[in-house]
């Protein structure tokens, strides 16, 4: 396919470049149907490589993290072994299935191994069963066959993925495809995690993802905040600079910047203290080559909005990196988790500059969050059966298309 290189160079619409998507309104019932949600669980999430977290959450051998993954109906225990390798297990004791690391929510720590709090069975960091309390009281038990149940686990550029299938249909590398090969060049190692936000939100996971994967809303919802830094006189609705939709389900959209925007005083300070870009201050991007991003080399580029199929937003720019997980909990509940990364700073001036970006992003994100439950609540009425999607919302259209493709695939 011959995709146009930028919005300026083409009067064609992106959506027409992908005829398989069509241009019809998209049914909304998939966001309220409990039956469809169960199909998403069985045919999509349980059969797909899912981005779980970054490996900076387990920096040393002995570090472990527990994630409650409702859509997989399990609790996932990640542990970095003494060999440095990160492994994933069902957090479930081979004795009678109790959680080895007990409790809900996220847990993390450092340990030499794991002791089940129920009857004291002990596992090492590699998942091997090391000790059974009063072993002689059991019948023909073989410890070597009773390690923690592993989950397929792979790491790409520090991103840890899991796959719940006994035998995945494809390798992680195959699942990431061309998108993974391209974005792998981005210098993630130049960024540090500055904070994590999370919340339980009463909406379908796709409603949450949609609000964060298109930029048509910028001119209205962020009309007071980010719009002036992104949308310009020549591109008032923020038409995308580049769009790529990948057969594996991932997608990438390049968003514009307004180079004539005059940032406010505190933002200018932050730029001065840290050097470089800020969420409210973009300069000519053709002058600063960023590997793995701004593929078309556009001058008025702000950031690439990627979606790692099916449920994670990944924004990359030289100003900031965001990951946002939209974990399905039930048909109308989502666990949202945002991780914000900024260019590494070791100076006090740099730390103060980072705080400016943190404050700005937090406000913009809260503007987005307010729409989610407002949408879901009304959808339950069934009054709105279809959503009307414009060309700038091609990522939303692609998202429903790829999810539906998996739901309708033969078993």
């Amino acid at each position, binding site marked *: 396919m011959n995709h146009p290189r930028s919005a300026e160079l083409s009067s064609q619409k992106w959506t027409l470049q992908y005829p398989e998507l069509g241009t019809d309104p998209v049914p909304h019932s998939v966001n309220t149907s409990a039956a469809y949600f169960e199909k998403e669980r069985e045919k999509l999430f349980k059969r797909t490589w899912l981005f779980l977290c970054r490996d900076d959450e387990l920096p040393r051998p002995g570090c472990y993290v527990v994630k409650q993954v409702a859509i997989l109906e399990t609790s996932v225990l990640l542990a970095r072994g003494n060999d440095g390798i990160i492994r994933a297990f069902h957090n479930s004791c081979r004795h009678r299935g109790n959680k080895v690391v007990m409790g809900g929510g996220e847990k993390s720590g450092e340990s030499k191994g794991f002791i089940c709090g129920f009857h004291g069975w002990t596992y090492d960091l590699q998942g091997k069963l090391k000790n059974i309390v009063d072993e002689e009281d059991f019948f023909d038990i073989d410890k070597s066959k009773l390690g923690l149940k592993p989950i397929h686990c792979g790491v790409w550029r520090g991103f840890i993925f899991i796959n719940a299938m006994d035998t995945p249909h494809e390798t992680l590398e195959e699942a990431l495809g061309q998108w993974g090969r391209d974005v792998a060049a981005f210098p993630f190692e130049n960024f540090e995690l500055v904070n994590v936000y999370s919340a339980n939100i009463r909406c379908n996971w796709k409603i949450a993802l949609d609000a964060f994967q298109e930029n048509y809303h910028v001119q209205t919802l962020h009309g007071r905040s980010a719009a002036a830094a992104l949308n310009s006189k020549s591109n008032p609705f923020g038409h995308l600079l580049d769009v790529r939709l990948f057969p594996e389900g991932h997608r990438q959209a390049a968003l514009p910047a307004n180079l004539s925007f005059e940032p406010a005083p505190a933002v200018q300070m932050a730029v001065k203290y840290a050097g470089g870009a800020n969420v409210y201050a973009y300069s000519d991007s053709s002058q600063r080559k960023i590997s793995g991003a701004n593929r078309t080399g556009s001058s008025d580029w702000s950031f690439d909005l990627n979606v790692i199929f099916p449920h994670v937003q990944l924004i990359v720019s030289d100003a900031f990196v965001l990951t946002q997980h939209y974990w399905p909990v039930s048909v109308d509940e989502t666990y949202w988790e945002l991780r914000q990364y900024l260019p590494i700073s*070791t100076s*006090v001036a740099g730390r*103060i500059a980072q705080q400016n970006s943190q404050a700005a992003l937090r406000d913009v994100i*809260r503007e987005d*969050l307010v729409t989610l439950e407002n949408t879901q609540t009304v959808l339950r009425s069934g009054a709105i059966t279809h959503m009307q999607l414009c060309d700038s919302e091609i990522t939303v259209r692609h998202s429903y298309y790829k999810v539906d493709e998996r739901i309708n695939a033969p078993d």
Partner: protein
Amino acid sequence: MPTLPKEFADLERFVTAGWALPREHARWKRRVTSSIAEIKDFYETLLPRMDAMVKYLDRHPLSEVPEGDRPLLYLALAFMDVSPSWEVFHAADLPEPVFEIDRMHIVERPYPWELAT
């Protein structure tokens, strides 16, 4: 007893008013529960002082900020946290309806001196 270096004694009243908070979540709550008059006073007083504050604090790398400098650092961070209120929204918090900040769980990174202990 003053908490700020003598060069910044004029800002002591903001420490007294509870702005020199180490945690982002606490500064955030302080911001959204302030009056706009209080925001304006804090923002406009610190704006012309920030360069001097940053220059003073930058005597040490982030990993070695002496205890006596930290309230000044927290004030500088609070300035950045407050700045969108005045520069973007002209209000302490976002306009209604808002996603309540108490619904957002935040995990903040520690300062280097908190890791050392």
